[in-house]
């Protein structure tokens, strides 16, 4: 099976439990959204899934093998990770930035033909070919997000794990990004797991939703089954209702629940 499996993940930071026995199975072909309040452990979960953090207990497997048993290069070829606050330290041009995504594949002698081809393909998919020569530090927020997404796509991974990829983006750019990720997940053997704050996006555009609260998984199902008013109340302490809008279900916030 090409699944990405989290098995009883437990992580404690400074004595405080961040993940408490979280288990989940992610299948190719799906876009999974991980939601929950701040401090629920979403980023930590994603980092464990990407093999960037060693859990205190439990393990993550990819295609049946433990992910931490893979050589870093091997792991990086199969999992593309988009961090939450992506920093770009130097004023390189977009094409160079996207080229960095080929690092797990390239040798010490720069990019090969195949690498260049992958870079171009990624630039086309994210519609950044016109901006390829631009200095990254001069891009707008939306353009920058697309460039970073292109970087991940250039690595031709099987799994795309993104931590808050839509944060700070205009609605239009948010839709673009989600479309890209859905298209990626639709390809055979590919899957997407992303953490989100926007419940509306999760509801409308994810195939599966995981809800975390205080490090524990309180829902793991299709969006409408996961984001019920009861779950929302437990996770966020808000009263909400799921209503049918003209273009799909919407979450309507009613008010706070006095805890």
């Amino acid at each position: 099976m090409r699944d990405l499996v989290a098995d009883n993940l437990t992580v404690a930071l400074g004595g405080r439990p961040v993940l408490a026995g979280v288990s989940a199975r992610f299948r190719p072909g799906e876009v999974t959204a991980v939601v929950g309040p701040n401090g629920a452990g979403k980023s930590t979960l994603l980092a464990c899934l990407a093999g960037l953090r060693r859990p205190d207990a439990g393990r993550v497997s990819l295609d049946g093998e433990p992910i931490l048993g893979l050589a870093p290069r091997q792991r990086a070829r199969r999992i593309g990770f988009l961090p939450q606050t992506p920093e770009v330290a130097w004023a390189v041009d977009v094409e160079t930035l996207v080229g960095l995504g080929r690092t797990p594949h390239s040798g010490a002698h720069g990019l090969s033909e195949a690498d260049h081809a992958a870079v171009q393909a990624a630039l086309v998919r994210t519609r950044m070919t016109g901006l390829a020569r631009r200095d990254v530090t001069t891009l707008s927020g939306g353009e920058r997000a697309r460039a970073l997404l292109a970087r991940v796509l250039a690595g031709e991974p099987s799994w795309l794990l993104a931590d808050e990829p839509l944060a700070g983006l205009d609605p239009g750019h948010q839709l673009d990004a989600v479309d890209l990720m859905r298209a990626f997940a639709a390809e055979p053997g590919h899957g997407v797991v992303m953490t989100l704050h926007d419940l509306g996006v999760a509801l409308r555009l994810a195939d599966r939703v995981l809800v975390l609260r205080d490090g524990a998984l309180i829902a793991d199902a299709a969006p409408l089954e996961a984001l019920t008013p009861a779950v929302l109340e437990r996770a966020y302490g808000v009263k909400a209702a799921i209503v049918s809008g003209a273009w799909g279900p919407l979450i309507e916030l009613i008010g706070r629940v006095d805890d």
Partner: protein
Amino acid sequence: MTRRLLLLGGLGLLVLLLSGLSLMAGRVWVPWSAWTQAAQDPRWAIIFELRLPRTILAVAVGAALGLSGAVMQGYTRNPLADPGVMGVSSMAALGAVMTMYLSLSLATPWLLFAAAMIGAVVGVAVMLVLAGGTGGTITFILAGVILNTVASAGVALALSLAPSPWAAQEIINWLLGSLADRSADDVWRALPFIAIGSGLMLMLGRALDALTLGETGARALGIDLNLTRVLLAVGVGLASGASVAVTGMIGFVGLITPHLMRPLVGHQPGALLAPSAVAGAALVLAADILVRLTPSVAEVRLGVAMAAVGGPFFLALLISMRRRLA
């Protein structure tokens, strides 16, 4: 890619030209007859025993420092970093100062070099212990600060407790950095370490490029940051430690050489490595030639000449940067 090779070729040619100039420059004019009548004319010794080792050392030390600067800036993602940030140069200086303080190098001249290298190795070891494992760049920089502080305090202590004013003067003169009167012995001692250290540093291009995306980004791209840190510490430690051991503290090169190369090569840290090495060699050579030709009394300190050569370029760079940002 061809543009890079063209640049490297051009810089290499510059180094070659400056080397030729370096063999000719000095207070003593050595005519061509000295070259042909090597056995009879002792001035041949000036070229062969003094200027040739000096030229080779200038190239080696300049390359080591330029390369170390590019590596440190790439690793810390800070364009103001230089090899001294790691604290290894100060530790090497401390080792050398101790031998001068104890007047040990009078009888055994190689002792100063050995003590400086021991200082450098201790510095690298302490650095790796303090900042190894799960430590990030911040811990690395802090460890460097600690080493710098301790070493500077040690040097200051040695200066204040110096047994005589001449001993203190000797220490100060050495610390100010100079290539004067270095011989083939110095070349044989320093070159292996500089070569090994530079070799290790040149392997870091891929990791430094990946660090453009930050530490998490680099790790996500499959870079082993622990290995990177070790290679960096040992590489910079050996190369800049050996440089300090033979010439004293030469500042400025490591800091400005990458800046001088960025307009020509771009900002990608890995691409800056080889050009910074060659450009550093050219810079130190040019400064050393200037030192030997200035008509002043004593030999102008190499660091001063460095500022004179590199300063104007740096100033022009700053002005153009300001214009861009304005």
